């Protein structure tokens, strides 16, 4: 029982991170029908930026976190403006190669700035782990859960209550119609890129204290976040959250009860299972093109 609880805690922590990354994927898919293979690299930038600001420049955590979000968000917008918008005939394959090219580019930038070393930083607060029925819950895990919950609630309110959020939803439903009724669709896409990459930065900055961060950490995180998005249903906010937590927990249980070597395989087995059985994802309702 105690063991299961311990696995559950570590699963929930990782799951929260996957959830945030998955939200970024979903957001971009909604606004541009694009799978951003460079998304994991923005997570990497977030983690390393956070470490540099708080550990290197000894900045307070809150401004460091906000600056990281803003900087990575700006990088994401720049990416959209320079590499995605100029594409005249956005075909799937072309967009895939462009985003993969961007991921290689960003990894190169990361290596130039931070070198090939791995970095870590102290947790956000120095509390000792909480004891829950014999299992230990790290303070950082609590932080991550709080941050993710706040973020999700904020996004939900943004989409439901604010005019900009509603305009973004309109763009996701039908871009041309949204443009006709006067929504600046280009700005909405730009905004979606900014928000999605800022979410990636949040994911990166939150796990910086509990992992070793280096320029190559993004690829696998990105792919797993993507699996989580597919699992929940590509294009849905709550689906991405659900998929993230589900993936995290199943992965932790797999490591605990089956084999640690297969940790990375869990995500992809789930991806295939969901594609074969229910390609629209667990909560997705949009019809998937299937022939």
């Amino acid at each position: 029982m105690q063991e299961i609880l311990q696995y559950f805690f570590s699963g929930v922590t990782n799951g929260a991170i996957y959830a945030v990354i998955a939200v970024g994927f979903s957001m971009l898919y909604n606004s541009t029908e694009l799978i951003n293979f460079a998304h994991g690299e923005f997570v990497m930038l977030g983690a390393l930026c956070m470490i540099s600001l708080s550990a290197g420049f000894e900045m307070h955590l809150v401004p460091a976190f906000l600056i990281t979000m803003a900087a990575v968000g700006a990088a994401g917008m720049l990416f959209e403006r320079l590499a995605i918008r100029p594409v005249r005939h956005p075909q799937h394959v072309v967009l895939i190669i462009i985003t993969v090219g961007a991921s290689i580019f960003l990894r190169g930038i990361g290596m130039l700035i931070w070198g090939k070393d791995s970095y870590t930083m102290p947790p956000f607060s120095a509390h000792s782990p909480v004891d829950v029925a014999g299992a230990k819950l790290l303070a950082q895990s609590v932080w991550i859960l709080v941050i993710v919950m706040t973020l999700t609630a904020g996004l939900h309110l943004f989409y439901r209550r604010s005019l900009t959020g509603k305009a973004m939803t309109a763009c996701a439903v039908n871009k041309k119609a949204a443009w006709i009724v006067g929504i600046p669709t280009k700005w909405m896409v730009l905004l979606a890129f900014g928000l999605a990459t800022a979410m990636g930065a949040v994911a990166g900055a939150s796990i910086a204290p509990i992992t070793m961060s280096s320029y190559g950490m993004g690829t696998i995180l990105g792919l797993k976040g993507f699996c989580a998005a597919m699992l929940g249903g590509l294009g849905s906010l709550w689906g991405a959250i659900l998929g993230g937590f589900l993936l995290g927990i199943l992965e932790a249980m797999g490591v605990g009860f089956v084999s640690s070597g297969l940790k990375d395989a869990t995500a992809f087995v789930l991806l295939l299972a969901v594609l074969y059985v229910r390609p629209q994802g667990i909560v997705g309702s949009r019809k998937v093109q299937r022939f």
Partner: protein
Amino acid sequence: MCAPRELSVLEKFNGSDSMDSRYRKIVYIVFAVAVVCIGLAVKNAYYLQMLIFIGLNTLLALSLNMLMGYAGQISLGHAAFYGIGAYMTAVLTASYHVPPLLALPAAIGAAMVVAWIVGVPTLRLTGYYLGMGTLGFGMIVHIVLREWSSVTGGASGFVGIPPLAAGPLVIDSEQHYFFLVWAMVLLCIIMCTRIIDSRVGRALRAIHDGEMAAAAVGVNTKKLKLQVFILSAGMAALAGFLYAHLIYFVSPGTFGFLASIRIVTMVVIGGMASIWGSLFGASLLTLLPEWLHAFSEFEMVVYGLILMTVMIFLPRGLTRGVLDLFERWRKTNDR
């Protein structure tokens, strides 16, 4: 199905319908002579190695081009078949001492069987979802190769693969290997052109243009997609087989996600649905990293930038893109 349109330069030049078989035979002969001349002239071991790698990558690009360029089915996990071919022969020849000549059909067969099993459910998906399904499959194969260390040697790789030998004939010099690989390339090019020019090839292109329309005129799209997927897997496994016996060593890193993406890039940069484009794309992407070594630590940045720039400005690939630019230039000059 599609309206008659003006043929572009490339279609006039490379269009399969306009080129008669006699002309094509001349092209093959020129190609073969060029290969023999290059093979005899180049003595430098490093250049020979590069040329062999171009050949292997051409096989891979060609195999994916059949699937992606002609049948329009994207695959982001093609390196998996490359890996299955390489590991199959590695395990058979090194651990079980099977002669390579017998390991070859086993390697190709294994990849084909896997492609058949995976293809049945996966090829029902379309567009992005097909890409994701093949991506997941590729990652799983990669992880299995990495974690099943009792058989595959795990993350550190598999050593001690014997050189290719058939009875008294042992192929261990770089030059002989060059001829072997490029003979296979020529063979595969001829096979692919013949398939594309046949009734099957027209049906494949019909699937590319519109699967429902193809089905409506009587093409068994499900069966045909599966067949081309299996063929493509077999060709990739052949490349894997040749790779394993060239290097005598295989490790899972060679067959990961980035390897799959590299094959896709070769096809797209060379030009989709173009046999000679595959050769061009494979050569370019094999040589590019070598040239970029000059940038030392900026290598990755420059490589990423080149990929992005080419795709943004020439989304139809370099060969077609340059021809399109030429066409536009000629038109403006004619006026």
